[in-house]
Protein backbone atom coordinates (compact mmCIF):
# COMPACT_ATOMS: atom_id res chain seq x y z
CA UNK A 1 0.00 0.00 0.00
CA UNK A 2 3.04 2.24 -0.28
CA UNK A 3 1.70 4.14 -3.26
CA UNK A 4 -1.27 5.92 -1.67
CA UNK A 5 -2.27 9.06 -3.54
CA UNK A 6 -2.05 12.48 -1.89
CA UNK A 7 -5.47 13.80 -1.03
CA UNK A 8 -6.29 17.23 -2.55
CA UNK A 9 -5.43 20.26 -0.41
CA UNK A 10 -8.51 22.24 0.69
CA UNK A 11 -8.43 26.03 1.30
CA UNK A 12 -7.72 27.01 4.89
CA UNK A 13 -10.63 28.37 6.92
CA UNK A 14 -10.39 32.02 8.02
CA UNK A 15 -9.82 31.31 11.71
CA UNK A 16 -6.63 29.33 10.92
CA UNK A 17 -3.60 31.67 10.76
CA UNK A 18 -1.23 31.05 7.84
CA UNK A 19 1.61 30.51 10.34
CA UNK A 20 -0.08 27.33 11.58
CA UNK A 21 -0.51 25.69 8.18
CA UNK A 22 1.80 22.76 7.47
CA UNK A 23 1.35 20.25 4.69
CA UNK A 24 1.09 16.71 6.02
CA UNK A 25 -1.07 13.99 4.48
CA UNK A 26 -1.27 11.47 7.32
CA UNK A 27 -2.25 8.69 4.90
CA UNK A 28 0.04 9.37 1.97
CA UNK A 29 2.86 11.77 2.91
CA UNK A 30 5.79 10.68 0.70
CA UNK A 31 8.43 11.24 3.41
CA UNK A 32 6.43 9.18 5.91
CA UNK A 33 6.09 6.30 3.46
CA UNK A 34 9.82 6.29 2.88
CA UNK A 35 10.71 6.41 6.57
CA UNK A 36 7.87 7.10 8.98
CA UNK A 37 9.81 8.20 12.06
CA UNK A 38 12.39 10.26 10.19
CA UNK A 39 9.43 12.19 8.87
CA UNK A 40 8.05 12.54 12.40
CA UNK A 41 11.42 13.97 13.52
CA UNK A 42 11.29 16.42 10.62
CA UNK A 43 7.78 17.51 11.58
CA UNK A 44 8.89 18.05 15.17
CA UNK A 45 11.62 20.38 13.88
CA UNK A 46 9.65 22.21 11.19
CA UNK A 47 6.02 22.42 12.28
CA UNK A 48 4.38 24.22 15.21
CA UNK A 49 3.28 21.95 18.13
CA UNK A 50 -0.33 22.52 17.04
CA UNK A 51 -0.71 22.85 13.26
CA UNK A 52 -3.37 22.63 10.56
CA UNK A 53 -2.94 20.52 7.44
CA UNK A 54 -4.98 21.13 4.28
CA UNK A 55 -5.01 17.39 3.43
CA UNK A 56 -7.81 14.90 4.06
CA UNK A 57 -10.47 17.63 4.18
CA UNK A 58 -8.30 19.81 6.45
CA UNK A 59 -7.68 19.02 10.13
CA UNK A 60 -5.55 19.90 13.15
CA UNK A 61 -2.47 17.90 14.04
CA UNK A 62 -1.28 17.94 17.65
CA UNK A 63 2.43 17.21 17.58
CA UNK A 64 3.94 18.70 20.76
CA UNK A 65 4.24 16.40 23.76
CA UNK A 66 2.55 18.74 26.22
CA UNK A 67 -0.18 19.67 23.77
CA UNK A 68 -0.97 15.98 23.16
CA UNK A 69 -0.95 15.32 26.91
CA UNK A 70 -3.31 18.22 27.58
CA UNK A 71 -5.75 17.47 24.79
CA UNK A 72 -5.94 13.74 25.60
CA UNK A 73 -6.95 14.48 29.18
CA UNK A 74 -9.37 17.29 28.34
CA UNK A 75 -12.32 15.09 27.45
CA UNK A 76 -14.86 17.90 27.95
CA UNK A 77 -13.52 20.02 25.14
CA UNK A 78 -12.15 17.24 22.95
CA UNK A 79 -14.40 14.30 22.25
CA UNK A 80 -13.55 10.84 20.98
CA UNK A 81 -16.87 10.78 19.12
CA UNK A 82 -17.52 12.38 15.77
CA UNK A 83 -21.20 12.66 16.75
CA UNK A 84 -22.13 13.12 20.43
CA UNK A 85 -23.64 10.32 22.54
CA UNK A 86 -26.79 12.39 23.04
CA UNK A 87 -27.23 13.00 19.30
CA UNK A 88 -26.69 9.34 18.43
CA UNK A 89 -29.14 8.17 21.06
CA UNK A 90 -31.72 10.72 19.96
CA UNK A 91 -31.30 9.47 16.42
CA UNK A 92 -31.64 5.83 17.46
CA UNK A 93 -34.75 6.62 19.50
CA UNK A 94 -36.35 8.18 16.41
CA UNK A 95 -35.66 5.14 14.22
CA UNK A 96 -38.44 2.67 13.42
CA UNK A 97 -38.42 -0.43 15.61
CA UNK A 98 -36.20 -3.19 14.25
CA UNK A 99 -34.23 -0.90 11.92
CA UNK A 100 -30.49 -1.65 12.13
CA UNK A 101 -28.84 0.74 14.59
CA UNK A 102 -25.58 2.44 13.62
CA UNK A 103 -22.53 0.86 15.24
CA UNK A 104 -20.76 2.96 17.87
CA UNK A 105 -17.26 1.60 18.49
CA UNK A 106 -16.96 0.92 22.26
CA UNK A 107 -15.42 1.99 24.52
CA UNK A 108 -13.23 4.17 22.31
CA UNK A 109 -15.85 6.57 20.92
CA UNK A 110 -17.59 7.11 24.28
CA UNK A 111 -16.67 10.14 26.39
CA UNK A 112 -16.88 10.31 30.18
CA UNK A 113 -19.19 9.66 31.98
CA UNK A 114 -20.52 7.02 29.53
CA UNK A 115 -17.00 5.80 28.78
CA UNK A 116 -16.49 4.16 32.18
CA UNK A 117 -19.73 2.18 31.81
CA UNK A 118 -18.46 0.58 28.63
CA UNK A 119 -14.81 0.23 29.60
CA UNK A 120 -15.65 -1.23 33.01
CA UNK A 121 -16.54 -4.80 32.04
CA UNK A 122 -13.21 -5.26 30.23
CA UNK A 123 -10.82 -3.78 32.80
CA UNK A 124 -10.22 -6.90 34.83
CA UNK A 125 -9.89 -9.12 31.76
CA UNK A 126 -7.05 -6.88 30.49
CA UNK A 127 -5.40 -6.14 33.86
CA UNK A 128 -1.70 -6.87 34.43
CA UNK A 129 -2.71 -9.80 36.65
CA UNK A 130 -4.95 -11.36 34.00
CA UNK A 131 -2.31 -10.87 31.32
CA UNK A 132 0.39 -12.51 33.45
CA UNK A 133 -1.56 -15.74 33.10
CA UNK A 134 -1.05 -15.60 29.31
CA UNK A 135 2.75 -15.36 29.47
CA UNK A 136 3.46 -19.06 28.99
CA UNK A 137 1.21 -19.40 25.98
CA UNK A 138 2.68 -16.25 24.41
CA UNK A 139 6.18 -17.64 24.92
CA UNK A 140 5.29 -21.06 23.55
CA UNK A 141 3.95 -19.53 20.36
CA UNK A 142 6.86 -17.08 20.00
CA UNK A 143 9.35 -19.94 20.32
CA UNK A 144 7.52 -22.08 17.75
CA UNK A 145 7.37 -19.24 15.21
CA UNK A 146 11.05 -18.34 15.63
CA UNK A 147 12.23 -21.96 15.51
CA UNK A 148 10.23 -22.51 12.32
CA UNK A 149 12.20 -19.85 10.40
CA UNK A 150 15.57 -20.17 12.12
CA UNK A 151 17.09 -22.91 9.84
CA UNK A 152 16.23 -20.87 6.73
CA UNK A 153 18.58 -18.02 7.63
CA UNK A 154 15.95 -15.45 6.63
CA UNK A 155 12.29 -14.55 7.04
CA UNK A 156 9.61 -12.13 6.02
CA UNK A 157 9.19 -11.03 9.63
CA UNK A 158 5.69 -9.50 9.47
CA UNK A 159 4.21 -12.51 7.73
CA UNK A 160 6.11 -15.18 9.67
CA UNK A 161 6.15 -13.76 13.21
CA UNK A 162 4.80 -10.26 13.89
CA UNK A 163 1.40 -11.04 12.45
CA UNK A 164 0.66 -14.61 13.60
CA UNK A 165 1.90 -14.06 17.18
CA UNK A 166 -0.39 -11.31 18.51
CA UNK A 167 -3.24 -12.21 16.18
CA UNK A 168 -3.37 -15.82 17.39
CA UNK A 169 -3.19 -14.77 21.05
CA UNK A 170 -5.94 -12.23 20.51
CA UNK A 171 -8.27 -14.55 18.58
CA UNK A 172 -7.94 -17.13 21.38
CA UNK A 173 -8.72 -14.53 24.02
CA UNK A 174 -11.66 -13.23 22.08
CA UNK A 175 -12.96 -16.70 21.31
CA UNK A 176 -12.78 -16.45 17.51
CA UNK A 177 -11.66 -19.40 15.35
CA UNK A 178 -7.87 -19.17 14.95
CA UNK A 179 -8.05 -21.05 11.60
CA UNK A 180 -9.79 -18.05 10.05
CA UNK A 181 -6.91 -15.74 10.95
CA UNK A 182 -6.12 -14.85 7.33
CA UNK A 183 -9.68 -13.69 6.67
CA UNK A 184 -9.73 -11.51 9.81
CA UNK A 185 -6.37 -9.93 9.02
CA UNK A 186 -7.38 -9.11 5.46
CA UNK A 187 -10.52 -7.46 6.69
CA UNK A 188 -8.63 -5.32 9.21
CA UNK A 189 -6.19 -4.28 6.49
CA UNK A 190 -9.02 -3.31 4.20
CA UNK A 191 -10.59 -1.38 7.05
CA UNK A 192 -7.45 0.64 7.82
CA UNK A 193 -6.51 1.28 4.21
CA UNK A 194 -9.89 2.76 3.41
CA UNK A 195 -9.62 6.49 4.11
CA UNK A 196 -13.21 7.31 3.17
CA UNK A 197 -14.77 8.94 6.24
CA UNK A 198 -18.30 9.28 4.86
CA UNK A 199 -20.49 8.00 7.74
CA UNK A 200 -22.51 5.54 5.63
CA UNK A 201 -19.34 4.03 4.16
CA UNK A 202 -17.77 3.77 7.60
CA UNK A 203 -20.91 1.96 8.79
CA UNK A 204 -20.75 -0.45 5.86
CA UNK A 205 -17.12 -1.18 6.71
CA UNK A 206 -17.88 -1.77 10.38
CA UNK A 207 -20.78 -4.03 9.49
CA UNK A 208 -18.44 -6.31 7.54
CA UNK A 209 -16.46 -6.81 10.75
CA UNK A 210 -19.53 -7.75 12.78
CA UNK A 211 -20.84 -10.00 10.00
CA UNK A 212 -17.70 -12.11 9.97
CA UNK A 213 -18.04 -12.69 13.73
CA UNK A 214 -21.78 -13.09 13.86
CA UNK A 215 -21.99 -16.88 14.19
CA UNK A 216 -19.45 -16.96 17.01
CA UNK A 217 -21.20 -14.14 18.85
CA UNK A 218 -24.59 -15.89 18.72
CA UNK A 219 -23.08 -19.24 19.68
CA UNK A 220 -21.48 -17.71 22.85
CA UNK A 221 -24.77 -16.24 23.92
CA UNK A 222 -26.17 -19.75 24.28
CA UNK A 223 -22.95 -21.51 25.31
CA UNK A 224 -20.69 -19.16 27.26
CA UNK A 225 -17.01 -20.08 27.72
CA UNK A 226 -14.17 -18.15 29.35
CA UNK A 227 -13.58 -15.89 26.34
CA UNK A 228 -14.20 -12.16 25.93
CA UNK A 229 -17.36 -12.50 23.85
CA UNK A 230 -18.92 -14.60 26.62
CA UNK A 231 -17.75 -12.08 29.24
CA UNK A 232 -19.42 -9.25 27.32
CA UNK A 233 -22.70 -11.17 27.05
CA UNK A 234 -22.66 -11.51 30.83
CA UNK A 235 -22.10 -7.78 31.39
CA UNK A 236 -24.65 -5.09 32.18
CA UNK A 237 -24.67 -1.49 30.99
CA UNK A 238 -26.42 1.08 33.17
CA UNK A 239 -28.38 -1.78 34.75
CA UNK A 240 -29.47 -3.27 31.42
CA UNK A 241 -28.44 -6.64 30.07
CA UNK A 242 -26.05 -6.68 27.12
CA UNK A 243 -27.70 -6.73 23.69
CA UNK A 244 -26.33 -7.97 20.38
CA UNK A 245 -25.79 -4.33 19.45
CA UNK A 246 -23.59 -3.73 22.54
CA UNK A 247 -21.45 -6.77 21.69
CA UNK A 248 -21.08 -5.60 18.11
CA UNK A 249 -20.00 -2.15 19.26
CA UNK A 250 -17.14 -3.72 21.22
CA UNK A 251 -16.19 -6.15 18.52
CA UNK A 252 -15.39 -3.49 15.96
CA UNK A 253 -12.88 -1.82 18.31
CA UNK A 254 -11.31 -4.88 19.85
CA UNK A 255 -10.99 -6.40 16.43
CA UNK A 256 -9.06 -3.48 14.96
CA UNK A 257 -7.06 -2.74 18.12
CA UNK A 258 -6.19 -6.37 18.76
CA UNK A 259 -5.24 -7.27 15.21
CA UNK A 260 -3.40 -4.30 13.82
CA UNK A 261 -1.35 -2.74 16.61
CA UNK A 262 1.17 -5.13 18.15
CA UNK A 263 2.04 -6.33 14.63
CA UNK A 264 3.39 -2.89 13.85
CA UNK A 265 5.09 -2.48 17.23
CA UNK A 266 6.99 -5.73 16.74
CA UNK A 267 7.94 -4.85 13.17
CA UNK A 268 9.30 -1.45 14.18
CA UNK A 269 11.27 -3.16 16.95
CA UNK A 270 12.67 -5.72 14.52
CA UNK A 271 13.85 -2.96 12.17
CA UNK A 272 15.62 -1.16 14.98
CA UNK A 273 17.31 -4.31 16.26
CA UNK A 274 18.29 -5.45 12.77
CA UNK A 275 19.97 -2.12 12.04
CA UNK A 276 21.75 -1.95 15.42
CA UNK A 277 23.93 -5.04 15.86
CA UNK A 278 25.66 -3.50 18.89
CA UNK A 279 22.31 -3.25 20.66
CA UNK A 280 21.59 -6.89 19.84
CA UNK A 281 24.96 -7.83 21.34
CA UNK A 282 24.24 -5.78 24.44
CA UNK A 283 20.84 -7.42 24.96
CA UNK A 284 22.15 -10.93 24.31
CA UNK A 285 24.88 -10.35 26.88
CA UNK A 286 22.45 -8.87 29.39
CA UNK A 287 18.81 -9.90 28.83
CA UNK A 288 17.79 -7.92 31.93
CA UNK A 289 18.06 -4.85 29.70
CA UNK A 290 15.28 -6.08 27.41
CA UNK A 291 12.38 -4.39 29.28
CA UNK A 292 14.16 -1.01 29.05
CA UNK A 293 14.86 -1.66 25.37
CA UNK A 294 11.21 -2.55 24.72
CA UNK A 295 10.12 0.74 26.36
CA UNK A 296 12.67 2.80 24.44
CA UNK A 297 11.53 1.16 21.17
CA UNK A 298 7.96 2.14 22.03
CA UNK A 299 9.08 5.74 22.63
CA UNK A 300 11.43 6.09 19.67
CA UNK A 301 8.93 4.47 17.31
CA UNK A 302 5.55 5.42 18.79
CA UNK A 303 3.12 4.53 16.06
CA UNK A 304 -0.57 5.39 16.57
CA UNK A 305 -2.44 8.63 15.78
CA UNK A 306 -5.86 8.67 17.47
CA UNK A 307 -8.36 11.40 16.51
CA UNK A 308 -10.31 13.90 18.63
CA UNK A 309 -13.25 16.15 17.73
CA UNK A 310 -13.65 19.69 19.05
CA UNK A 311 -16.86 19.77 21.16
CA UNK A 312 -17.43 23.54 21.04
CA UNK A 313 -15.60 26.59 19.70
CA UNK A 314 -12.59 27.01 21.95
CA UNK A 315 -9.02 28.16 22.34
CA UNK A 316 -6.39 25.47 22.83
CA UNK A 317 -2.71 26.32 23.47
CA UNK A 318 -3.41 29.76 22.04
CA UNK A 319 -5.09 28.42 18.90
CA UNK A 320 -8.72 29.05 17.90
CA UNK A 321 -10.60 25.84 17.10
CA UNK A 322 -14.17 25.45 15.91
CA UNK A 323 -16.86 23.02 16.94
CA UNK A 324 -16.71 19.79 14.94
CA UNK A 325 -13.14 20.18 13.74
CA UNK A 326 -10.91 17.14 13.83
CA UNK A 327 -7.58 17.07 15.69
CA UNK A 328 -5.25 14.13 15.24
CA UNK A 329 -3.03 13.33 18.22
CA UNK A 330 0.31 12.66 16.58
CA UNK A 331 1.78 10.46 19.30
CA UNK A 332 4.89 9.58 17.22
CA UNK A 333 5.85 13.28 17.17
CA UNK A 334 4.94 13.79 20.85
CA UNK A 335 7.40 11.09 21.88
CA UNK A 336 10.14 12.67 19.73
CA UNK A 337 9.63 16.17 21.14
CA UNK A 338 12.97 17.63 22.34
CA UNK A 339 11.19 19.73 24.98
CA UNK A 340 10.25 16.45 26.70
CA UNK A 341 13.08 14.07 25.67
CA UNK A 342 16.71 15.20 25.38
CA UNK A 343 18.18 14.27 21.97
CA UNK A 344 14.95 12.47 21.07
CA UNK A 345 16.42 10.82 17.96
CA UNK A 346 18.94 8.93 20.11
CA UNK A 347 18.10 5.46 21.31
CA UNK A 348 18.99 5.55 24.97
CA UNK A 349 18.39 2.66 27.38
CA UNK A 350 19.10 4.88 30.37
CA UNK A 351 16.29 7.32 29.62
CA UNK A 352 14.65 7.03 33.00
CA UNK A 353 12.42 9.61 34.57
CA UNK A 354 10.43 10.56 31.47
CA UNK A 355 7.40 8.55 30.50
CA UNK A 356 6.48 8.03 26.86
CA UNK A 357 2.86 8.08 25.78
CA UNK A 358 2.85 5.39 23.09
CA UNK A 359 -0.30 3.95 24.67
CA UNK A 360 -1.99 7.34 24.95
CA UNK A 361 -2.88 9.32 28.08
CA UNK A 362 -6.19 10.16 29.71
CA UNK A 363 -9.10 7.79 30.29
CA UNK A 364 -8.75 6.06 26.89
CA UNK A 365 -5.26 4.78 27.78
CA UNK A 366 -4.79 1.63 25.75
CA UNK A 367 -6.77 -1.17 27.32
CA UNK A 368 -4.42 -3.71 25.74
CA UNK A 369 -1.18 -2.08 26.95
CA UNK A 370 -0.34 -4.81 29.45
CA UNK A 371 -0.95 -7.54 26.90
CA UNK A 372 1.05 -5.66 24.27
CA UNK A 373 3.99 -5.15 26.65
CA UNK A 374 4.16 -8.84 27.53
CA UNK A 375 4.03 -9.80 23.87
CA UNK A 376 6.77 -7.34 22.89
CA UNK A 377 9.07 -8.29 25.76
CA UNK A 378 8.66 -12.02 25.28
CA UNK A 379 9.24 -11.76 21.54
CA UNK A 380 12.44 -9.73 21.98
CA UNK A 381 13.67 -12.14 24.67
CA UNK A 382 13.16 -15.17 22.46
CA UNK A 383 14.63 -13.51 19.37
CA UNK A 384 17.76 -12.56 21.31
CA UNK A 385 18.05 -16.02 22.85
CA UNK A 386 17.40 -18.06 19.71
CA UNK A 387 18.57 -16.14 16.64
CA UNK A 388 22.16 -15.21 15.82
CA UNK A 389 22.82 -11.57 14.88
CA UNK A 390 20.25 -10.62 12.25
CA UNK A 391 20.19 -7.77 9.71
CA UNK A 392 17.87 -6.30 7.09
CA UNK A 393 18.01 -7.84 3.62
CA UNK A 394 19.73 -5.03 1.65
CA UNK A 395 17.93 -6.06 -1.54
CA UNK A 396 14.51 -5.41 -0.09
CA UNK A 397 14.14 -1.77 0.99
CA UNK A 398 11.56 -0.86 3.63
CA UNK A 399 8.36 1.00 2.89
CA UNK A 400 5.92 2.22 5.53
CA UNK A 401 2.17 2.61 5.78
CA UNK A 402 0.77 5.73 7.42
CA UNK A 403 -2.70 6.62 8.64
CA UNK A 404 -3.83 6.02 12.21
CA UNK A 405 -1.42 3.10 12.75
CA UNK A 406 2.09 3.38 11.31
CA UNK A 407 4.50 0.59 10.53
CA UNK A 408 6.69 -1.09 7.93
CA UNK A 409 4.81 -3.05 5.24
CA UNK A 410 7.21 -5.99 5.50
CA UNK A 411 10.59 -6.52 7.17
CA UNK A 412 12.97 -8.97 5.46
CA UNK A 413 15.51 -10.29 7.95
CA UNK A 414 18.63 -12.37 7.27
CA UNK A 415 21.14 -14.14 9.50
CA UNK A 416 24.02 -16.62 9.13
CA UNK A 417 23.39 -19.94 10.83
Amino acid at each position, binding site marked *: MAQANLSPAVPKPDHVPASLVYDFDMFADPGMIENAHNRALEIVKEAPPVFWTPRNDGHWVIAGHNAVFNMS*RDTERFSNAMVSYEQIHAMIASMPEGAPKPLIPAPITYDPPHHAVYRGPL*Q*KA*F*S*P*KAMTALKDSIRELAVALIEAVKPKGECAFVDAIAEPLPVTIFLRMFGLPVERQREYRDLVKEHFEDTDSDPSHVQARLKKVTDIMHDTIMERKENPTDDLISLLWQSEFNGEKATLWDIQNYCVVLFAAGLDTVVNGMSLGAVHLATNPQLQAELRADPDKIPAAAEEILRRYTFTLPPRFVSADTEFEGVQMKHGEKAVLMLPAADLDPSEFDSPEEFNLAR*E*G*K*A*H*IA*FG*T*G*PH*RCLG*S*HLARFELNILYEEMMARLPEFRLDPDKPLTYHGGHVWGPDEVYLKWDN
Partner: protein
Amino acid sequence: MKILIDKANCVGNARCAAIAETLYLLDDDGYIAVEEFEVPAGMEQLARRGAKACPERVIQVIEDDQE
Protein backbone atom coordinates in the same frame (compact mmCIF):
# COMPACT_ATOMS: atom_id res chain seq x y z
CA MET B 1 9.43 10.43 52.54
CA LYS B 2 5.80 10.33 51.50
CA ILE B 3 3.97 9.54 48.24
CA LEU B 4 0.73 11.30 47.33
CA ILE B 5 -1.37 10.00 44.45
CA ASP B 6 -4.15 11.74 42.57
CA LYS B 7 -6.04 8.44 42.50
CA ALA B 8 -9.06 9.77 40.62
CA ASN B 9 -6.85 10.53 37.63
CA CYS B 10 -5.05 7.19 37.53
CA VAL B 11 -5.82 5.54 34.18
CA GLY B 12 -4.23 2.18 34.90
CA ASN B 13 -0.87 2.32 33.13
CA ALA B 14 0.58 0.37 36.07
CA ARG B 15 4.09 1.65 35.32
CA CYS B 16 4.64 2.57 38.98
CA ALA B 17 3.97 -1.04 39.99
CA ALA B 18 6.16 -2.34 37.14
CA ILE B 19 9.04 -0.58 38.90
CA ALA B 20 8.06 -0.96 42.56
CA GLU B 21 5.39 -3.60 42.95
CA THR B 22 5.55 -3.71 46.73
CA LEU B 23 5.12 0.06 47.10
CA TYR B 24 2.48 0.88 44.50
CA LEU B 25 -0.39 -1.51 45.19
CA LEU B 26 -2.94 -2.03 42.43
CA ASP B 27 -6.60 -3.07 42.56
CA ASP B 28 -8.01 -5.99 40.54
CA ASP B 29 -8.47 -3.78 37.47
CA GLY B 30 -4.81 -2.76 37.58
CA TYR B 31 -5.43 0.80 38.84
CA ILE B 32 -3.69 2.30 41.87
CA ALA B 33 -5.31 1.15 45.12
CA VAL B 34 -3.84 3.73 47.49
CA GLU B 35 -3.85 7.52 47.79
CA GLU B 36 -0.81 8.00 49.98
CA PHE B 37 1.83 6.07 51.84
CA GLU B 38 5.02 6.52 53.82
CA VAL B 39 8.05 5.17 52.00
CA PRO B 40 9.93 2.62 54.14
CA ALA B 41 13.56 3.54 54.84
CA GLY B 42 15.88 2.37 52.09
CA MET B 43 13.20 2.33 49.39
CA GLU B 44 13.25 6.05 48.57
CA GLN B 45 15.03 5.70 45.23
CA LEU B 46 12.65 2.98 44.06
CA ALA B 47 9.66 5.10 45.09
CA ARG B 48 11.01 8.10 43.14
CA ARG B 49 11.59 6.00 40.04
CA GLY B 50 8.07 4.56 40.26
CA ALA B 51 6.63 8.06 40.54
CA LYS B 52 8.53 9.34 37.51
CA ALA B 53 7.40 6.38 35.40
CA CYS B 54 3.77 7.55 35.53
CA PRO B 55 2.74 8.76 32.04
CA GLU B 56 -0.25 10.48 33.65
CA ARG B 57 1.96 12.44 36.12
CA VAL B 58 -0.39 11.76 39.04
CA ILE B 59 2.24 10.65 41.59
CA GLN B 60 3.83 13.26 43.82
CA VAL B 61 6.91 12.68 45.94
CA ILE B 62 7.08 14.60 49.23
CA GLU B 63 10.68 14.59 50.41
CA ASP B 64 11.20 14.68 54.18
CA ASP B 65 12.56 18.21 54.18
CA GLN B 66 9.40 19.47 52.44
CA GLU B 67 6.99 18.28 55.14
